[in-house]
């Protein structure tokens, strides 16, 4: 353990870029087709990336809250909303159906991370986990968990980075 700590500290003391970028991993879209996550970077608009699953009630609440607030938020600043389901083969069909019925599949970019490569690449341990990536794909905000009202931090951050 001691060696590990020393190694960690040594690594941390280097001049690495810590602001994590969107990783190059493949996920599925609503129709099952694969897409590389980096292709979401458009150089113009930032995006909210939210990790959710059908077994995560707070995640569903968070996405509903964002869905509800999105028209108002878009009046204030331009952004895109990406909902990443980490449901695996057991419940991914349910996740797709839920995203369709709740309007997320049409108003958000709905992605399905079936073997959780995207989740691991961003070091997501618990859901809900939300990120904001700027127009160049650099991570500028992250938050674990959702409590009613937490979503207001997202629009504040989006406005802040648009200035």
């Amino acid at each position, binding site marked *: *353990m001691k060696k590990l700590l020393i190694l*960690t500290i040594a690594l941390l003391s280097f*001049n*690495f*870029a*810590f602001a994590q*970028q969107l990783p190059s991993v493949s996920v599925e*879209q*609503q*129709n*099952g*087709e*694969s*897409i*590389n996550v980096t*292709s*979401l970077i*458009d*150089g113009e608009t930032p995006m909210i990336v939210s990790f959710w699953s059908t*077994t*995560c*009630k*707070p995640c569903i609440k968070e996405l509903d809250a964002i869905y*509800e607030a999105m028209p108002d938020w878009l009046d204030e600043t331009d952004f*895109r909303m990406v909902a990443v389901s980490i449901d*695996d*083969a*057991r*419940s991914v*069909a*349910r996740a*797709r*159906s*839920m995203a369709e*019925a*709740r*309007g997320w*599949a*049409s*108003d*958000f*970019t*709905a992605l399905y991370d079936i073997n*959780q*490569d995207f989740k*691991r*690449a*961003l*070091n997501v341990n*618990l*859901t809900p986990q939300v990120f904001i990536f700027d127009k*160049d794909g650099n991570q500028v905000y*992250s938050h*674990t*968990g*959702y*409590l*009613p*009202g937490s979503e*207001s931090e997202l629009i504040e951050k989006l406005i802040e980075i648009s200035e």
Partner: protein
Amino acid sequence: MNKKAIAGAVVISALLVAVRVSASEPETGISQDYGTLADGAQSAVSAGNPASANSISYADLEKNAAKDTERKKSSGKYLGQLSGSFETNTIHYVEDNPIGFIPPEGNYGSNNYLKLDYNYKGFSAGLQAEWYPQVLQGYDRQFKGLGLPFLYLSWQNDFMSATVGSFYEQFGSGLLFRAWEDRTLGLNTAITGARLTFNIKDLVNIKVFSGLPRDYMKYPWSSSYMNYVPAFTEDMDVIDDINTKTARTVLTGLDVSFSLSEALKLEDHYFTVEGSLLHKYSPWIWSSPGTTYYYISEYAGGKVPSNVFSYSARLNYAYKGFSANFEYVGKGKEIVRPTDGASDAENLLKRGNAQLIDLSYSTGGLSVSAMFRRLENMRSDMYRRPDQTSSYTSNSLNYIPSLTTQHTYSLVAIEPYNVNANDEIGGQIDVFYQFRRGTALGGKRGLKVHATFSTYYANSLKDGLTMATDETGAPIYDDNFMPVLKSYNNQLMYREFTFDIDKSFTKSFQALFMYSYQKHLVHIPDLATNHLEERHAFVLDMTFKFSRKYSLRTEFQYLYSPLSEDKDWCAALLEFNMAPKWSIYVSDMFNHGNPDAKHHYYQAGVAFTHSIVRAALSYGRVKEGYICSGGVCRFTPAYTGANLSLTVRF
């Protein structure tokens, strides 16, 4: 084996370097690939919402790629990117006589994970260190000590990737093969070896790998593996300390996906044909059911093969709101070991097969998905254990989940259905409907309804027996007070009907009501038999939002279960939230219907989140299952005590 593995790694590394040189494509090649990706992104978005602002154009991507390169060049000192996470889940246990909980030595358990990843251009390297000074109660004891079970080096460009070291992988839905991690379940089946993936113009995707599956905290070169057939005396007594040893397993797999929609340039359609091959090499088998030792030649007439070949074929089709997926898996000859603890005589050498059909359709606010699955002798272990009657959580080669709704309300999920991978037929259907805003039922904020139905039977095995029951589900006895048995075949294993209604009444009040009916074949150890239980669960979950910062959530649950041993339960939860950082809660589950064990499962906790850190502290008596509180959900085994859960990500 060790030398072979090292030699393999060297060869792969050399190959990697060679490929790297030859893959230095001109810029045009790269931009072409960006183009196809952009098309994909656009079609997905436009399929759902024509007015969406999410579309990504080819030009945008190219522009962005150029900007990215420029930025990296100008920074000069770019040393790559380091990211990672740390997680600890530590419990101080307390002895709890009423529910019979005995804490382990030292009254504690602790699971710790440190994950680090380093990326530089197309290269990445990383590790996961795990530390179990004493593994948490309910997890496999084989997780012990400090180790580096996950180490990798990989390189990728837009056309291919190469990995040496550990990786996770899945073919199709995982019915044939899945290597994955689930920390809350204490499961990690990463493969250590080498993997190559290719993407040829989005037309053909190929994955090929070979390696050793992870075996808890053992390294592949560990001396606790055995490469030779063990020695036995004439009485079948073992000469070596064989109980602690396992045969090494080597897996090799190939997965090919061919896009017909890309080949035929079918717009709006998505159509792929896929196939996989999997080879498992386990040099020998040895078992000790009870006290009898078996030698490989004694087992199933000495015909146990060391090589097991399996395959799968798949079709995926999607058009607008409709999608259909078909999967067939054929599994090579292996010893079939029933999951329900049946007698050794049933351990036979058999082939396995599985069929999976998944259909879904959505239009407007309506969305329907249906799944059918049939399993026959599909249980497949990564390692053959000396003691194969014990359950090893982290030893599954394929992923065969129960295809039922995974409930998170404690009383709805009090006794979830467990799949029988060797013998099951059934399916489920899910219907989601959203009454839009402004409709009579939708009101100002819409109304969401969801219903699910699932039913599963034991089907293919003809030799199983179960207890006969009358129409009330009560067991039938003969004149000698012995339970009457009937054939297992076509026996209902599980049936469920659940619906939930979710409505935001005002900006500050939201409520969810759920009803669940479950009929479940439950094993009764005392009678060494099974009987059908019926349960009705009711849930009311309400959220009151006082301001942007303060909110209160309450949960009330009732379980009506007259036929079960535990009878009725009730539960309540009160959670006070201060967004976005603090949450405190108290909850109780009370087994009031059981005259012999009226137990309270009480809990209280606090959770704090700020920036990259999340910490949660709780105390109580916990029943196994999902705990959704403090803004997150996680699975936990049963315990009594204080729990500290801390995650840091960077």
